[in-house]
């Protein structure tokens, strides 16, 4: 039972997890608010170009213009406003692509791992074949076929990444399926689907949550990569990946065009993965 030493250790873990949870969710809430309120809080029009104000440095540097806090890019567009608007695309992709990937992958993985038999054989072979495609080429190909746009990016992410969920969830479901509590549920006459949902699913939910948040981070990165190779949404609309791509060409003259969107991207992806870990520590009944 609970002894003082393990209680101490547990509260230490909890404290650390708490800090991680607060920092990561704090940043993500900020990003969400930014995305929602971008048109009102952005100081400038993110699309407005002004050739006379090209490559203005951020506010603390010599030559900065008031109102352009993080400087401007080579077309004179306000970097801060573009980052704020870019959060919309990043977040949309993260949430929609992450959730869809999770639903499809986790459902298939759960079925394969718990039902076994031919269901497992079909799904597992399908995963093996799927994973043999090189993912970047596959996504570029997909978008070439579907045409660029937000929904194409989301579809590409789901189509490529569901296997990540399916494989991990399958392994977990198999491990849980071998436990005696599952046998007991079966003995008392529970059907297979009901056993899967009420007995197995709650035990792999912490894993699914971690995977989901990781996937959201990955989705943000994938969107950035696709923007970088000009396969994302239209090049005028501000996205973090697109900004990084544009900033790359002028990095020696105007590093801020590259660095600020990069920092936003980095912090957001990090926050997603830390949120997952923090949630797991908090909600896994065994760790709690």
């Amino acid at each position, binding site marked *: 039972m609970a002894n003082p030493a393990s209680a101490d250790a547990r509260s230490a873990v909890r404290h650390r997890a708490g800090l991680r949870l607060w920092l990561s969710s704090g940043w993500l809430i900020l990003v969400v608010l930014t995305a929602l309120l971008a048109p009102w809080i952005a100081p400038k029009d993110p699309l407005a170009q002004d050739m006379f104000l090209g490559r203005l440095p951020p506010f603390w540097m010599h030559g900065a213009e008031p109102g352009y806090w993080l400087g401007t890019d080579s077309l004179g567009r306000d970097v801060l406003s573009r980052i704020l608007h870019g959060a919309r695309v990043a977040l949309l992709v993260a949430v929609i692509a992450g959730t869809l990937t999770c639903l499809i992958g986790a459902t298939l993985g759960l079925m394969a791992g718990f039902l076994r038999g031919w269901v497992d054989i079909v799904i597992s072979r399908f995963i093996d074949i799927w994973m043999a495609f090189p993912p970047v080429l596959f996504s570029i190909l997909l978008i070439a076929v579907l045409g660029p746009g937000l929904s194409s990016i989301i579809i590409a992410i789901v189509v490529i990444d569901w296997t990540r969920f399916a494989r991990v969830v399958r392994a977990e479901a198999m491990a849980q399926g071998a*436990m*005696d509590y599952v*046998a007991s*549920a079966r003995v*008392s*006459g529970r059907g297979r689907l009901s056993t899967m949902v009420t007995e197995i699913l709650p035990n792999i939910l912490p894993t699914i949550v971690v995977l989901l948040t990781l996937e959201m981070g990955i989705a943000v990165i994938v969107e950035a990569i696709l923007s970088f190779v000009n396969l994302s949404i239209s090049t005028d609309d501000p996205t973090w990946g697109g900004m990084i791509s544009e900033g790359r060409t002028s990095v020696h003259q105007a590093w801020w065009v590259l660095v600020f969107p990069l920092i936003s991207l980095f912090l957001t992806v990090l926050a997603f993965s830390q949120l997952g870990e923090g949630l797991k520590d908090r909600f896994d009944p065994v760790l709690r």
Partner: protein
Amino acid sequence: MSFLEIKGLSAWLKGIGQPLLRNVSLAVAVGEVRGLVGESGAGKSMIGKAILGILPKAVEITAGQILLDEVDLLALAPKERRRRIGATCALIPQDPLTALNPSRRILGQISDRLVDILGWDRFRAQARAEELLAEVQIPDPQRVLRAYPHELSGGMRQRILIASAFAAEPKLIIADEPTTALDVTVQKQVLKLIAEMQDRHGTALLFVTHDLGVVSKVCQSLSVLYGGLVVEDSAVRPFFAGPKHGYSRALLEATPKYTDPSASLVPVPDGVIKAVQNEIADADRRATDG
């Protein structure tokens, strides 16, 4: 009258065709406690799993009948078989650490039985769950009902599993080495508890164990298993007075004696093993010839 009767049950490992159960026959009368004894790999747990319909997929039953209340389970459609097993049988598993769902509170896990099997509503089931915990002598049942399994000790969890096995008043409980995973002092309490519960509820019990000492205390009859073959089937008293089969005799002699703690452990002699393995070979020959 026998509640459970197994007739000529044979099973093998699919694919390689390795026999696991060889023409096993045994019966458990209403309210009887029968021990199922054998060393590791003798197939004793396999018999329990076959009755409950939870054999691993790799194991296939090749012949025989499992009669539960005079109905052959193996002849039933899967759904009807599940229903019948659920309504009349329960399991006390070996390892209390994996037998409770770690992410659900105890309350839900016990009341599930009553809801699934007896069709009770949640509210009534929850009230009964508290009574059951009190019956297995768990102090402060209300607190325990709200707990998660990892917050409870192994002995406590085994008591909960016993309560949950008896919850829906089954006719037959299969206890699969229920004390193996517990330490010795707790073992004794848990055995006593199972015996008391069995007596009070009049449930038939198939007690799977490798410990003849436990059998002599709890059971009325026993079947000794070696290599999936029942080598002896006897009432407890005559068995402990003088087992008929050579292997049973050697097994009994191998049990450590409390009277002489300095005596070294006696293994089952090689000659006895040879003899019983010949018997198995004979049985397999008969099976393929017939």
